[in-house]
């Protein structure tokens, strides 16, 4: 009897490259599966929200006015809240998949449309905040790590912990008091001076004002953006500085850094190329995780600076008891955060094989 040289069960993984590909696909599939389950949970929560909130949404729409029961019943049937819950949930998902998240009770505009109007303002604010946080936080963390145990280290880390503990609603007010009220350097609220009309092309005021070709408009947009961005960027800055320091300290103890030093490479090259590359992996993860808290912070920052973004919109939704806005808004914000986290996860997994292979 002839023995088969390659028994079938070993055929699945023929070459290292193919095994690697299988691992990557498996890693992506696992992450995607978890994300789908999480997102399903969020849809249930956001669907349940409107039923958990005390009071009847139809009665809320009419407020204090007296409406005859027949009209109310007709309205209920029209919105569909007289159907069984499971049917309502199915319809909610079906509509959501078609981009229909209902209408705002206050403005009667589509919730998705309103979200898309306000979303670029929040993205602009969040990206600016993150830029400030990264450009200051990473160098600060590196310096603290290199000067470990010195006054510089203690000062940087003390400031970082203070920033991390900062109630940003208060910090924002202090910034306004100092820069707007006392020094008169920046405006107090809004995205741009009302003297300028900027045609929304991208929805990002900085870019749109730049396109408009009016340097005054760009300056105005920038001066409106700077304080909210500092306020919102403070906590991520502190988190990034702390994370960079500890990641850097860990990496600086590694053998390959000692080897690089022993080879006689310049300190700049050792730190900047050998150490920093690996130290940045956990920092990138932390930056991704900060996106969620940026949205939370945006609620406070946008409220204080009257920044017309998603956070401000959601708080107005709460204050007006505009439940479709709250429901749709939470679903959309969660979707954005889940997508960003997934992207960061995949990026880090692709960059760092150690994570990809961990089960």
């Amino acid at each position, binding site marked *: 009897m002839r023995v088969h040289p390659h028994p079938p069960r070993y055929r699945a993984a023929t070459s290292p490259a193919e095994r690697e590909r299988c691992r990557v696909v498996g890693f992506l599939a696992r992450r995607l599966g*978890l994300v789908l*389950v*999480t*997102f399903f*949970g*969020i849809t249930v*929560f956001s669907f349940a*929200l409107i039923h*958990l*909130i*005390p009071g009847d949404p139809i009665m809320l729409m009419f407020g204090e006015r007296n409406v005859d029961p027949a009209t109310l019943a007709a309205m209920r049937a029209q919105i569909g809240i007289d159907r069984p819950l499971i049917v309502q949930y199915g319809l909610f998902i079906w509509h959501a998949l078609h981009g229909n998240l209902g209408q705002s009770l206050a403005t009667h505009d589509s919730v998705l449309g309103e979200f898309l109007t306000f979303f670029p303002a929040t993205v602009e604010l969040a990206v600016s905040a993150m830029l400030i946080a990264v450009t200051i936080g990473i160098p600060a963390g590196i310096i603290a790590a290199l000067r470990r145990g010195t006054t510089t280290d203690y000062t940087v880390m003390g400031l970082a*912990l*203070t920033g*991390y*503990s*900062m*109630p940003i*609603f*208060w*910090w924002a*007010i*202090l910034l*306004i*008091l100092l820069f707007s*009220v006392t020094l008169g350097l920046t405006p107090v609220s809004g995205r741009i001076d009302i003297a300028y009309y900027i045609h929304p092309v991208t929805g990002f005021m900085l870019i749109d004002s730049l396109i408009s070709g009016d340097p005054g408009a760009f300056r105005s947009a920038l001066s409106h953006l700077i304080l909210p961005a500092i306020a919102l960027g403070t906590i991520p800055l502190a988190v990034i500085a702390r994370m960079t320091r500890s990641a850097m*300290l860990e990496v600086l*103890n590694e053998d390959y850094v000692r080897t690089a030093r022993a080879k006689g490479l310049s300190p700049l090259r050792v730190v900047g190329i050998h150490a920093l590359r690996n130290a940045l992996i956990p920092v990138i993860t932390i930056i991704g995780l900060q996106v*969620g*808290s*940026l*949205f*939370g*912070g945006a*609620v*406070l920052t946008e*409220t204080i600076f009257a920044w017309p973004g998603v956070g401000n919109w*959601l*708080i107005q939704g*709460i*204050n007006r008891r505009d*439940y479709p806005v*709250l429901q749709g808004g*939470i679903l959309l*914000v*969660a979707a954005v*955060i*889940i997508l960003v*986290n997934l992207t960061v996860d995949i990026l880090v997994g692709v960059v760092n094989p150690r994570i990809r292979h961990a089960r």
Partner: protein
Amino acid sequence: MSETALARSVGLLPEFRRHFVASRSGVIGLGLVLLLVLAAIFAPLLAPHAPDNQIRTAILHPPTWLAGVFPLGTDDLGRDVLSRLMYGARLSLSIGAVVVTLSFLVGTMLGLIAGFAGGVVDALVMRLMDMMLALPTLLLAIAVVAILGPGLFNAMLAVSIVQLPGFVRLTRAAVLVERSKDYVAASRMAGAGRARLMFLIVLPNCLAPLIVQASLGFSNAILDTAALGFLGLGAQPPTPEWGTMLADALQFVQSAWWVVTFPGLAILLTVLGFNLVGDGLRDALDPRLKLG
């Protein structure tokens, strides 16, 4: 209490103290927290005025510092800011304590169950936690308050719920590590029941990261409840809750800087204190850092 339990079982209290003191940040934090606790306990003795006493002749009186009757000034109704802050310290500490106790108990329980049961139960609990983590804590807390209605108690409940995932994940991770160790197998063979294994044998060995988390949870609780108060969803005026005081005084920010500055400073120092304690506890309790 948990610290001493931990120390008694392995005789680590002196070592713990040494590392905690050596970290310095822990000592500074503890000092801040102690100061706050004293101010809260002795508020009726130390406060120059009653927190709700409206002195109509001294509306928006600027701070007199050490010299006079209104060390930190008065608010728009003529109430002494320092006195309100001291009574507010009672609220903030209670908020922290209640929130951390609630989320510690429920979160640890869920984490233990998920870690021990495994399978479907584990998957269910952990996916629920993933879902909660997908929303920013403040937004989730706002949604919960929208369901329950605004108010200090509901805000505290919302913040407790929001803090659950941290405790659940830490407990579960620690349980998974501990469960496979020899001492657990030995106890199981000696006939220890499931409850005994969970609470008396495995849980004490999972406490170190949970204690650190509790300390950080304290500061998050105070910060989030204050933020909810600031948004008008937490404690309602005239409660001297710091976030609510801040929101209340916002309209006078240009004419009377002190009504806004001091409540915020109180929040910052308190949160900073608990974060410093958390850092100190981590330095003292995390064996990986001890080696370094």
